[in-house]
């Protein structure tokens, strides 16, 4: 599975990975809190960089898309979603309480409106009335409560358990659902944009998570896990303008990169996600094909356990950082689809991103630091596997060649793909890794960069960072918060134990008959998983 590069980056479950059967491929998605808690300020959003602007949005037509992120073991249980295919399908036939718009604003969906108590601890969501599920059942507040509770409680099997762990109580109040939080959170509505959170019909207070009845703009006509899904316009949609543009969809699971690409070129499908970056320069030139790409906060990290020699030496770490070929990493591992990183985990999509912070490629300085560290000529192991991110093996070789120039011998240890996250990550002193995009700075920092963090994969223990992160969480002044986060970025970049050469990009490709809008939503690839409703066929 060598070199199936960025196409696999964001989530681990390509066909190949599934062939390997790593049960742990999904853990990073959990870690990532699935990126869908989109707080508007933080969401990466970008103008579509495709060539020709498609015509004005148009209703009607039949769209065929080919998505790679599918598995024959997929089910309609949204608590178990972890991949693009099901996310997109579910977003088409179900609704959430709140959506993230293409401009990354909070849009009301099944919650018509919401209001918070002064301390932002109690939130009241007014549920839209007169909405029917596809099976004819009317939407009730009970359904909403059951859909929330699906992700809560001790025995929940939902990935999103962590997302909703701050909720202490959910109750019905007339036409509204009242959510009580343990601590105040001004961004509570964003929780309900999470892709795991879809509103399902309930029975006896339990959500029917395998039901094909949703309230969405499309009816689920046919669903064959890992093969294909057929969607047809819901004539009874509550949404203004029906909530969707194309009349019907066929969503095919096409796991093989080449097959997806040929299907697009031959016109068998209109849209594909994650075209193979290796061929993207050529694909761009194919007549009738457009590339759609959106910057993402996904980070390619290479954590060092800072309690192990020589990684405990800051000069040594600095030497490595200074001799890491960042542009070449983007060119050769990401084929140009990425942004240069600066060895700290907050990507350019964050408002607090410190644009002045950069790590130059400087071999002389690196040599100087290496000399200072006293580790000249040392041999270090890098545990790598394409499980960590597609192209990790290539990246490792890139590093090997450049670090050799300053006198560090890199020994690439190819780790088994099965059990990588269990046996390598957080275990081996130096490995390849990636972190999915987070909606807010705090999530990344709290999980991995505090002394007390559960997944502190670099074992960073910096009192100043600890202090700043806690302070920023409670800071309401945006400017001050930004300043704090920028200081954190500087500290981690300078002293931290991870090398982050680049941040990633979400890429899709379409036929030129497909219109995608001026702006494309972030938070997840394929327009935040909403592309089936938002894109149109001209």
């Amino acid at each position, binding site marked *: 599975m060598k070199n199936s590069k960025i196409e696999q980056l964001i989530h681990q479950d390509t066909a190949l990975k599934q*062939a390997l059967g790593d049960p742990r491929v999904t853990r990073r998605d959990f870690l990532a809190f699935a990126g869908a808690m989109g707080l508007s300020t933080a969401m990466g959003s970008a103008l579509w960089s495709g060539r020709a602007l498609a015509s004005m949005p148009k209703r009607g037509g039949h769209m065929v898309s080919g998505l790679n992120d599918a598995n024959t073991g997929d089910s309609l249980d949204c608590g178990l979603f972890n991949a693009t295919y099901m996310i997109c399908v579910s977003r088409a036939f179900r609704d959430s309480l709140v959506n993230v718009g293409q401009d990354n604003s909070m849009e009301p969906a099944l919650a018509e409106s919401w209001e918070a108590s002064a301390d932002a601890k109690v939130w009241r969501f007014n549920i839209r009335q007169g909405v029917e599920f596809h099976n004819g059942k009317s939407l009730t507040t009970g359904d909403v409560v059951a859909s929330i509770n699906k992700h809560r409680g001790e025995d929940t099997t939902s990935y999103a358990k962590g997302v909703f762990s701050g909720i202490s109580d959910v109750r019905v109040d007339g036409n509204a659902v009242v959510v009580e939080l343990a601590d105040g959170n001004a961004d509570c509505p964003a929780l309900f944009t999470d892709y795991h959170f879809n509103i399902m019909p309930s029975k006896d207070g339990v959500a029917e998570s395998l039901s094909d009845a949703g309230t969405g703009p499309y009816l689920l006509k046919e669903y064959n896990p890992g093969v294909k899904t057929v969607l047809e316009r819901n004539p009874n949609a509550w949404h203004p303008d029906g909530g969707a543009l194309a009349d019907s969809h066929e969503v095919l699971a096409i796991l093989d990169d080449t097959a997806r690409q040929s299907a697009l070129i031959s016109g068998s499908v209109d849209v594909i996600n994650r075209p193979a970056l290796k061929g993207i320069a050529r694909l761009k030139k194919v007549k009738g094909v457009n590339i759609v790409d959106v910057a993402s906060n996904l980070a390619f990290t290479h954590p060092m356990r800072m309690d192990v020699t020589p990684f405990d030496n800051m000069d040594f770490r600095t030497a490595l950082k200074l001799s890491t070929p960042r542009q070449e990493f983007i060119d050769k591992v990401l084929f140009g689809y990425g942004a240069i990183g600066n060895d700290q985990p907050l990507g350019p999509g964050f408002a607090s991103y410190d644009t002045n912070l950069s790590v130059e490629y400087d071999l002389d300085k690196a040599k100087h630091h290496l000399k200072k560290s006293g580790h000249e000529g040392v041999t270090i192991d890098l545990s790598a596997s394409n499980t960590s991110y597609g192209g990790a093996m290539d990246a490792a070789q890139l590093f090997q060649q450049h670090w050799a120039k300053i006198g560090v011998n890199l020994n690439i240890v190819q780790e088994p793909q099965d059990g990588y996250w269990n046996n390598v990550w957080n275990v081996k002193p130096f490995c390849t890794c990636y972190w999915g995009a987070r909606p807010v700075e705090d999530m990344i920092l709290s999980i991995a960069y505090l002394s007390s963090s559960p997944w502190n994969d670099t074992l960073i223990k910096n009192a100043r960072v600890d202090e700043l992160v806690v302070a920023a969480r409670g800071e309401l002044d945006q400017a001050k918060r930004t300043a704090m986060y920028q200081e954190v970025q500087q500290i981690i970049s300078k002293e931290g134990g991870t090398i982050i050469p680049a941040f990633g990009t979400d890429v899709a490709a379409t036929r030129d008959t497909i219109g995608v809008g001026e702006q494309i939503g972030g938070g997840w690839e394929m327009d935040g998983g909403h592309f089936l409703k938002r894109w149109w066929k001209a």
Partner: protein
Amino acid sequence: MTGAETTSRDPKINRPRRTRLQGALREVLKAPMTAKFGILVILVYGFVAIFAPVLTPYGETEIVGPEFDVWGEQFILGTDGLGRDMLTRLLFGARNTVGVAFITTCLAFLIGGLTGLLAAIYGGWLDQISSRIVDVLMAIPQLIFALMLLAIFGTSIPTLVIVIATLDATRIFRVTRAVSLNVVVLDYFEAARLRGERIFWLCVREILPNITAPLMAEFGLRFCFVFLMIAALSFLGLGIQPPTADWGSMVRENAVLITFGDITPVLPAIAIAILTLGVNFLVDWFLHKSSGLKDGH
């Protein structure tokens, strides 16, 4: 039929004796064009495999240029996505792919051949049990079984070799058993048995020299299958792992470019095809010789 009539005063009796090497050389010179082609291909591949480090301008995994450089003077066949010299990787691929397939096939022959021989000689319950085991193993789809075993034991080259060899050994068991049974019924084998020879002698001196031709032929076929099997596993991400240059995964990793009509990603596949073709030609010749079938009419 009085077969002996085709030769009057058996010319073999009076011809000068030759050593085996001379005999083999003479055979090769007399071989048909296709077989010569096969021998040439195998020799060239063997040469390349052994001397790859000397022949190649760059290191196997050395990044020497920009990604996807075109064919030119510096990089004769261009570079791959990481900027590694394509020609270098192609030549090293001979070493890795062919080497692994060769070792795997050898191991498979060791396992399958030995059990097949023993089953043929001892017969009885040993034969029954081993044949049943082989039946069971063959009833499980090979690729999927390999997939499972590799998932259990990890995807290093040694496990890859052992797993494929074990699975492939089932086929070799059958062939070896079948051809050995033909020898076991012959008088000279009976004579050796009646002499009280031990099993090792029976295998090594009485049977093996007489089944080399069909086994060599089978070796060629198996070699090709192993080759293609590793390529298929590489396709599914379980074959030889990067950055090792392996033809199967080289095709796989650049496969997206085939859709654009690029020739470069197909080169490793052509290398595979030529070798397979060459081996098969040679196998045909072996089969032809071992069957002693003279075609005519």
